[in-house]
């Protein structure tokens, strides 16, 4: 087969909804796009542990602490599923970690915002994990098999993350006026960054068209963002909190809620590394990696010792 017929038969498979597996032919650009997307996704899970880890020792009850610990542990697991999926495309774990630690790779900008009160644990679980789920459910049918399978596993586990966050918000919103204010403040601060998690507007998203053609993505950034707004407005009402954006209004004609234009300058600024916590997050992550060096060395030494013992 010529290069052209390889690509034609690849696209035919995609159009027929036949999953692509690691050993199958795929265009270089498809492979590159997937490596970028899956590794960014993995990095987001790993860096995503940091803002919440910040609150584990200060959780208000043992129940909340156990739950938060389990959630953060899940994020670590999700990072591992995703790194393995990316490795099937020919990049090594060490290469990906190197890209993360040197700042060459991106992760979701949402994790560059600070978690200043306990209510942020509620808002993150509810809004950030909620937005992630909205993104991830269609990815369970993404065209690359290992990525899709990892996402099925992730989605099964994420649902508790969102529910525990909403439960925290509910307790605060039904609590004292100060607690309610804390919940409102967290909602107000996390609303716009959560909406930005869906990525830039379709009109300026460089990767959307090709990703849709390859069925890596099933819905555009704007479609998913709108869907998130529509379901979340209802959830805000149930909490009894104020809407975080005065321009949220039901649009009968569109059948959707309208809302304010997001501050895209802020978005690009955080992507470029100038968000409130970019430097701190990366530094924490690098320190964790370096502090863990002795553990990795000890595990290798122990494996070696066990092997020699067995041989003897």
């Amino acid at each position, binding site marked *: 087969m010529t290069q052209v017929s390889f690509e034609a038969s690849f696209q035919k498979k995609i159009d027929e909804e036949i999953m692509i597996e690691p*050993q199958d032919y795929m265009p270089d650009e498809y492979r590159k796009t997937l490596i970028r997307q899956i590794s960014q996704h993995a990095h987001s899970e790993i860096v995503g542990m940091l803002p919440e880890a910040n609150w584990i020792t200060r959780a208000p009850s043992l129940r909340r602490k156990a739950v938060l610990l389990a959630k953060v*542990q899940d994020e670590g*697991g999700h990072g591992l599923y995703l790194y393995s999926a990316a490795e099937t495309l020919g990049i090594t774990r060490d290469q990906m970690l190197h890209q993360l630690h040197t700042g060459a790779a991106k992760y979701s900008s949402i994790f560059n915002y600070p978690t200043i009160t306990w209510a942020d644990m509620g808002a993150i679980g509810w809004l950030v994990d909620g937005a992630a789920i909205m993104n991830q459910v269609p990815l369970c049918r993404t065209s690359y098999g290992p990525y899709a399978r990892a996402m099925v596993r992730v989605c099964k586990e994420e649902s508790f993350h969102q529910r525990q966050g909403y439960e925290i918000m509910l307790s605060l919103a039904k609590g004292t006026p100060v607690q309610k204010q804390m919940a409102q403040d967290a909602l107000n601060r996390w609303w716009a960054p959560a909406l930005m998690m869906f990525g830039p507007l379709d009109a300026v998203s460089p990767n959307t068209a090709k990703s849709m053609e390859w069925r890596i993505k099933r819905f555009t950034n704007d479609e998913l963002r709108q869907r998130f707004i529509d379901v979340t407005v209802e959830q805000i009402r149930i909490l009894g909190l104020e809407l975080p954006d005065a321009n949220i209004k039901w649009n009968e004609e569109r059948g959707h809620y309208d809302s304010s234009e997001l501050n895209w300058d802020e978005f690009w600024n955080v992507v470029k590394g100038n968000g409130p916590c970019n430097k701190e997050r990366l530094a924490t992550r690098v320190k964790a990696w370096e502090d863990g060096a002795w553990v*990795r060395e000890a*595990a290798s030494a122990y494996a070696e010792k*066990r092997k020699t013992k067995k041989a003897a």
Partner: protein
Amino acid sequence: MSNENKEWPLWEVFIRSKAGLDHKHAGSLHAADAQMAIENARDVYTRRMEGISIWVVESNHIHASNPEEAAAFFDPAQDKIYRHPTFYNLPDELKHM
């Protein structure tokens, strides 16, 4: 923060979800040896009681059929529908078979 070249080997993880079922491929992970791979697999793949037994095998020990030859390779089974019970025409009054 060196780009370490001492990456642990990759292991494929297979999990039996309950007694009587086959071990099924769950995913993969890195570990220094088999014992640690099993322990890591417990933490990564069975946080919600998904398994009662774990197998791990180093990924480079897996041999696979070639996807490019799949059509020819699986061709022998293509035209043998008589291997399926529905191929046989039997009278309707035959109730139990």
